[in-house]
């Protein structure tokens, strides 16, 4: 099936633009002091979330990490409710109790960003187990970074997924830095994906600037997983434009890299190749981009005007009385 077509391009471009706009709003509002706590942004990494999640169905699952806004948006979470959570409002996905690092929309298959590095992989294995035990057709994508690839649970999760032949894709966004240190501090080899052979399943490294390439390799892995072929490890080489967290002075980056991260830009990358796609023109992309900005701007205005959580929210949901399932 040819995927480098107009509709797919527009859809992927739209998702990337919405992520970009969302992260830029979050960055500005954080800088302005309007968002409490800490946030970790995925500017520069839009093609990973957009390309990977575009291969999924509504009832497939994703698990994510601390840099999860893009994944959540791409899988179908509502930017209004996400921004409500960032503003710590009662209408937020976590009722204002969890913040940026725990945004989830279980009805959309988003099992949550997560503040503990590596757990996206273990939780993803669990979601894949549910699918397998119930003999459902679903798949799971577990997003993580090269930093998480060094955790014990990364190994445990990939080993179990292979033994049990689970329908899961381990999707590593290697964005050059884990926290405040470079890739080489965290990973002993050039490519995280090369580790897949140790678990007995395929590993693929892909250009994380090329959203079509991400889409294609993920689509292949998803088809394999859905047909009972087991896991794949995908590593997308990407770039984190900002610091580990907003406000990070990024002293560990060169000045060139710190000031001009946009040498790597998945949105520009697609825009530059518009002529390669039949029936697609720059104006179409510009319209999509404008609509994305407007959508996120509207969400921002809606969210900032919401109420803060009532005091009762503090003690709600510590324990569940009734069953609630994704």
């Amino acid at each position, binding site marked *: 099936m040819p995927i480098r077509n107009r509709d797919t391009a527009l859809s992927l471009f739209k998702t990337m633009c919405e992520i970009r706009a969302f992260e830029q709003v979050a960055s500005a509002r954080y800088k302005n002091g309007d968002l409490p706590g800490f946030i970790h942004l995925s500017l520069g990494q839009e093609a990973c979330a957009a390309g990977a999640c575009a291969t999924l169905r509504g009832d497939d699952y994703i698990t994510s990490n601390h840099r999860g806004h893009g994944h959540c948006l791409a899988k179908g979470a509502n930017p209004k409710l996400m921004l409500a959570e960032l503003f710590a409002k009662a209408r937020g996905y976590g009722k204002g109790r969890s913040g940026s690092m725990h945004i989830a929309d279980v009805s959309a298959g988003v*099992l949550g960003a997560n503040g503990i590095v590596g757990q996206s992989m273990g939780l993803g294995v669990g979601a894949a187990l549910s699918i397998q035990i119930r003999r459902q057709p679903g798949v799971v994508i577990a997003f993580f970074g090269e930093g998480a690839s060094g955790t014990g649970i990364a190994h445990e999760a990939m080993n179990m997924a292979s033994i049990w032949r689970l329908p899961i894709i381990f999707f590593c966004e290697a964005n050059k830095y884990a926290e405040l240190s470079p890739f080489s501090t965290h990973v002993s080899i050039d490519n995280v994906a090369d580790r897949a052979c140790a678990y007995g399943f395929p590993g693929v490294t892909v250009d994380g600037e090329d959203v079509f390439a991400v889409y294609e390799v993920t689509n292949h892995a998803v088809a394999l997983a859905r047909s009972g072929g087991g896991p794949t490890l995908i590593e997308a080489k990407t770039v984190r434009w900002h610091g580990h967290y907003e406000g990070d002075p990024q002293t560990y980056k060169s000045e060139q890299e710190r000031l001009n991260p946009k040498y790597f830009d998945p949105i520009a990358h697609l825009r530059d190749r518009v002529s390669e796609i039949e029936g697609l023109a720059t104006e179409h992309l510009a319209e999509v981009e404008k609509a994305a900005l407007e959508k996120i701007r509207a969400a921002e205005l809606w969210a900032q005007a919401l109420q803060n959580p009532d005091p009762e929210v503090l003690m709600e949901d510590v324990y569940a009385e009734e069953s609630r399932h994704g």
Partner: protein
Amino acid sequence: MARLKYYQALTRALREEMVRDERVFLMGEDVGESGGIFAQTRGLYQQFGSARVRDTPIAENGFVSAAVGSAMTGMRPVVEIGFEDFVTCCMEPLVNQAAKLGYMLGGQISVPMVLYAFGGGGLNAGPQHSQSLAAWFAHVPGLKVVIPSTPADVLGLMKSAIRDENPVICLLCKKLIGLTGEVESEGDHLVPIGRARVARSGSDVTIVAVGQMLPIALKAARMLSTDGVEAEVIDPRSISPLDEDTILTSVEKTGRLCIVHEAHGPFGVGSEIIARIAEKSLTSFRVPPLRVTPPFAPSPFAPSLEELYLPTSASVYEAVCGLIAI
């Protein structure tokens, strides 16, 4: 009534709940074809198959995280951690994920899972195979913690734990594995979580005995009785939530409180019980309360040293005599 051994009550609870609810599945090290290190899962693999009775690699962090992920997506996992000490290898998914996800996700999901483990000393198993860590888990909002000390309570508490919508840690007593007791032969025997049991009535002193300290406390009570001192012995059964009313009612009657547990004294379950009684009804203490616990050292291997280490009926008897003499 039927007579069942402690470990057989566990098998029966698992079997009954797996028959009743196909979402329930079991995983852990050697729970499958081998039937478990204490024969506690014997026959389940043959009855329910490898999908629902799943041997795992030695990867507690990984498979407990997977249990959380599967509980979030509609299953009701039960995980076995052979020795309670090894729960330290999966504190992350328990404390940061299972306990908090319902809260963090704004109540979108519950995490109905059970983790059971065999703890406690008296088998010369040494410092890494003898610990009692209930207080660690009871300190975490979102978790429930139970410790059954009889076959009937193993059956009833495990079944309640499996039906609970929250993560429940069921801490079983290694030394009681072969203990035989009366259990209802038919029907759904459920013991509600959060309710203590008065194992022996008395009016002179209250002894709260946790887990495998119960038979020791009961023996001490019989020794005291020959001296004309009638001890009320309470098995809290549930550490979190704690049935403080039952303990408080007893202490208000007796005026004397002795708590016996195998876990260390500092910051422990006994400390918590004393604090709660003191906060609610300080004047009910006619004499200062007392904890009988091991000394603040790891559990030693040498039988002669472990004998010195653990509370015994003699040490409980002596401690209570001291309380009575005040």
